[in-house]
């Protein structure tokens, strides 16, 4: 069947760009995806591993600062050189926080740069899709600005492999362990629990506040969000048993991240969905084993199939598409590339209309791509510019960068995004873009009528064509094209 290149480009990529070739058929999207990740090499994002060194350095600086502060406080008239050393130490400690924020800004710039210049756009969409499926929010120390580093390290290298590998990489990543409280969880019958109980008995004045226990948070989300789906056939006891299996897995940021401490694990076997895992001694292998089985569960196949269809095609997808995706997933043992291949060839996924609304990040990214903004300029934006021109407007549009409301990620339906506030923020940003192009991004703003041709092609709606020519200024013309429903939908 003949495929509309514009539909293909918009539904499975970030739309056209002035210097980017349009995909003529699905293989133009799938072939680059099977090849090397060129954009990751060209616009690098710092890997999560830097957080470990940073955390150690941060802690050393904080210790020095705290020690100097104690000395200063103990004196009635601290000498000037001591106060100077305290100031210097405080600045050194604060530098790590600022550097964390700068790193976050650079990674957002790099994400946009990749999208602006890539000829492998489906990879960028899949990166966002799986980052959302395995949502994390940084809430401790330097992890607060490190969601992109986690995506780059755990998810992006595994977009096209087997889902089990992606699942294991995400669920056992320090970012996830900290976000969903796994690092605090200890088995109720573990050595660690027994030690804590003994300590509490020896010193009753110690509040039981510090006594740890089992935390089901990660186990529950793995079943509900990452694998089986909320409607699937599992019960509270399965969650509990999975949590007991997970106990012992934790993140230590000033070492090398993931660690498994058998003393915190729950002794004995656990039964998840009718299958027994583990023996007397808790071990990491049991965790990977249960994750591999969860990955291949038929309910997981359906859950993932549905999510892919909803995200890429329609909020109310054709059930035949979901069935086909789930079947392909199970046939191939959870291989993702064949699933994507089916998605991009399925008639339901290749026919109009485009009914979804681009999320704010995707809207901004596709706008910058349509205007031909050079990647190097985006990757080189400083933190102030990123904050002012990207993060703040994105927040007003309803999508604060890397701070979704919960582990279930961002909303899919268009009504969640196209609200009075969200739409006003989109219009304000789009109308102001013209001036930023000239001032900050090194782009001569195009004639709005050309932007219509580039971005929407021969099937551009008459109203948009008319508006692009009838606008009073080039800035308004560009803004109107970008906020038109035809550009906003995908």
């Amino acid at each position, binding site marked *: 069947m003949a495929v509309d290149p514009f539909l293909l480009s918009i539904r499975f990529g970030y739309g056209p760009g002035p210097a980017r070739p349009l995909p003529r058929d699905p293989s133009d999207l799938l072939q680059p995806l099977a090849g090397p990740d060129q954009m990751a090499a060209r616009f690098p994002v710092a890997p999560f591993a830097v957080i470990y060194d940073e955390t150690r350095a941060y802690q050393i600086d904080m210790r020095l600062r705290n020690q100097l502060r104690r000395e200063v406080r103990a004196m009635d008239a601290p000498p000037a050189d001591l106060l100077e050393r305290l100031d210097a130490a405080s600045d050194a400690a604060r530098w790590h926080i600022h550097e964390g924020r700068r790193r976050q800004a650079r990674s957002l710039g790099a994400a946009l740069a990749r999208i602006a210049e890539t000829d492998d756009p489906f990879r960028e969409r899949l990166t966002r899709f799986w980052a959302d499926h395995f949502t994390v929010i940084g809430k401790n120390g330097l992890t607060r600005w490190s969601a992109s580093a986690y995506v780059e390290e755990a998810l992006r290298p595994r977009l096209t492999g087997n889902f089990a590998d992606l699942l294991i990489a995400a669920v056992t990543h320090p970012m996830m362990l900290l976000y969903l409280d796994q690092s605090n969880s200890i088995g109720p019958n573990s050595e660690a629990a027994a030690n804590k109980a003994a300590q509490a008995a020896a010193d009753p004045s110690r*509040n039981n*506040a510090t006594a740890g226990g*089992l935390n*089901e948070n990660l186990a529950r989300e793995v079943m509900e969000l990452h694998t089986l789906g909320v409607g699937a056939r599992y019960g509270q006891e399965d969650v509990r048993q999975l949590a007991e299996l997970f106990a012992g897995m934790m993140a230590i940021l000033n070492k090398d991240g993931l660690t498994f401490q058998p003393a915190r694990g729950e002794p004995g076997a656990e039964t998840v969905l009718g299958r027994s895992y583990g023996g007397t001694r808790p071990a990491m292998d049991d965790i990977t084993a249960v994750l591999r089985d969860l990955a291949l569960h038929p309910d997981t196949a359906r859950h993932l199939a549905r999510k892919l269809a909803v995200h890429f095609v329609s909020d109310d997808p054709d059930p035949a598409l979901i069935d086909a995706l789930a079947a392909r997933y199970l046939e191939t043992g959870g291989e993702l590339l064949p699933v994507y291949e089916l998605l991009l060839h399925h008639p339901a996924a290749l026919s109009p209309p485009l009914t979804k609304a681009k999320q704010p990040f995707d809207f901004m990214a596709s706008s910058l791509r349509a205007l031909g903004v050079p990647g190097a300029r985006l990757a080189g934006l400083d933190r102030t510019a990123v904050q002012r021109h990207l993060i703040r407007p994105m927040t007003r549009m309803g999508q604060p960068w890397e701070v979704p409301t919960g582990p279930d990620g961002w909303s899919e339906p268009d009504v969640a995004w196209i609200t*009075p*506030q969200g739409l006003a923020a989109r219009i304000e940003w789009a109308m102001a873009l013209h001036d930023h192009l000239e001032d900050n991004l090194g782009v001569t703003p195009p004639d709005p009528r050309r932007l219509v041709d580039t971005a929407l092609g021969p099937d551009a709606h008459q*109203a948009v064509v*008319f508006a692009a020519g*009838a606008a009073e200024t080039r800035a*308004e013309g560009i803004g109107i094209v970008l906020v038109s429903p035809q550009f906003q939908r995908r």
Partner: protein
Amino acid sequence: MTRSTPCPPSDAMVRRVLDRRAFLFRSGALGCSLAASPLMTPVTFAAAPWDTRLVVIILRGAMDGLDVVQPYGDPDLTALRPTLVPGEAGGAADLDGFYALHPGLGDLLPLWDRGELSFAHAVSTPYRDKRSHFDGQDLLEAGTGFAPGEPAPRDGWLNRMLQAVPGITSETAYAVGAGEMLLLNGAAPAASWSPDQELSLSPQARRLIELVYETDPLFHANVLEAIQLTAAMEAEAAAPDPEDDLDEETAQAAMMAGMTVPEGNAPHLKLAEFTAGRLRGEARVAAFSINGWDTHANQGNALKKPLTALAETILSLRAGLGSVWGQTAVLAVTEFGRTARENGTRGTDHGTGGAMVMAGGAIRGGRVHGIWPGLAEADLYARRDLMPTADVRAFAAQVMRGITGLDARVMEQAVFPGVDLSAAPEPRKLII
């Protein structure tokens, strides 16, 4: 939801609505017969089945309840706080001989005298020990999910309250401000708008945008609403409506009663003005945040700014609501309290028990509610924090019952599953 629902119902959708209405009828709030009554105008019904107003303010950063509503009658307080001098000696105003109000809220004293201001002390959510702002705020707004590993909260308690009420439209509830309000997230429709959102369109750009949106109803409806909202904001900012005598009269009356009417362009005042404007119209519920309570150092200074913002917000709501203030309850809640002891930097650290603020003409004011646990070391939570003696959710629930007429079971089962309402006074003791 239709505004003139026939009764009895004729289709499945209406039947569902009426089932819920029948449920409310049993609880005494609203029955089908009342909905059809000619005395209820369609507009009133569409907005909400009640006429009172509820504003919930989230105080982000953990407000120090011990410094804001100071238990200066407790003999242990002074020793705990060497530089944060409590009571009249520190400039606070006596409330009832035991508690004194921080001077930063001094402008609210006329409200206290008129019975439009009250507090609950030694309250908290069931969140304990981790003392993380992030988790504490999420749980405060979710109102559920406190046990370790319980499902992550996905909707907020104010939204669940709205879910229990028929006739909710997208105009009934507003989340105001740029920040996310988990409190109002959920299945019930709720609008969100940040009053500093601009939409500066030339007349031609506006015409062209409306033209390109004609084929897409979702974009069309929402851009029109955005244009209306920004136009209303601009009109109010440019010139107060000269025909709005009500505002003028209220402002004068407020002045006579010794109340200041805050003026200016501070963000919290813009929030309050916008909120008042919506609540004078169809809206019945609004929520927003006041930040800046995380006073780890130099609290004597650091607390001034957020307290001024809170006082001015309440006074601005009062002035902006005019006669509607008499039917309004404002609740201000925070994620947790702060340490009983002052720390080494003349501030306080993350704690547990704290205070909640209630204001409004609908509030039965002039009292500090709660059971005082004492501040002796053995009375403190974990020997460091004010011991919570009541669940702040129980107070919120009882206020909501008083405002909406919703049944206790709605609170215990849907809004705050499992909450013990007996921890707070009956609605009639909190609401007039």
